[in-house]
């Protein structure tokens, strides 16, 4: 089986990744994927001071891979899925760039939908990545969101970030 987790500076190709997951596996009847991208908040609010010019992503090498591998193990225990793949980029990114990808295969859609959301909720609050936004006011670290903890709690996991 190919790698389940990749932390990389390079971009990724979702279509290629999905092909690798599902081709040669005739048990698969469903593939669910999620891609997170760099948002320029100015495009949302129209406020010049909200502009995100660039984003830098830092991580904890070693722990990052280990923690996401553990999340994928947890997804396999909870859901009837065949394969899961997570790619997360680090380094310097620009608005509209892809940041993260989760893709899951299963026999029926329900399990891969749930596993995909579970993995993203888990990753948002437990994988050691930090975003720094470059704005007209200077560079600032992004604050963690309480709503992300609440999203993880839906799965019965109380592990406040």
């Amino acid at each position, binding site marked *: 089986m190919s790698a389940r987790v990749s932390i990389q500076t390079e971009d990724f190709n979702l279509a290629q990744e999905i092909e690798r997951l599902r081709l040669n596996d005739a048990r698969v009847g469903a593939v669910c994927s999620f891609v*997170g991208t760099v948002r320029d908040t100015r495009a949302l609010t129209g406020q010049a001071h909200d502009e995100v010019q660039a984003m830098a992503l830092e991580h*904890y090498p070693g*722990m990052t891979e*280990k923690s996401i591998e553990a999340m994928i193990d947890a997804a396999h225990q909870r859901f009837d899925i065949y394969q899961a793949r997570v790619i997360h980029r680090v380094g310097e990114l620009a608005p509209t760039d892809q940041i993260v990808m989760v893709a899951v295969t299963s026999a029926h859609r329900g399990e891969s939908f749930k596993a995909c959301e579970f993995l993203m909720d888990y990753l948002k609050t437990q*994988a050691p*990545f*930090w975003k720094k936004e470059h704005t007209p006011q200077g560079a600032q*670290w992004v*604050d963690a969101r309480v709503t992300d903890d609440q999203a993880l709690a839906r799965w019965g996991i109380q592990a406040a970030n």
Partner: protein
Amino acid sequence: MMQVHLRYFASIREALGCGSEAWQTAATTVGALRTELLGRGAAFQCLAADKPVRMALNQVMCQPSDALTPGCEVGFFPPVTGG
């Protein structure tokens, strides 16, 4: 006393001007280590009890009560914001 490896990330790494270091500690738990580090000067106040600091022991999220072992790696960082 035992030697431990300290790792700092994101805003904490920037505040300390350092990403990793070896440290001789008298502490026996991760929480006691954090308190001990506060005594090293003003820059270390980024680890103060009222600051949102997360800790990892040997690259796994941990609790303040978790026990240190010789040569262990302890990471200090703010709440994570990936995804």
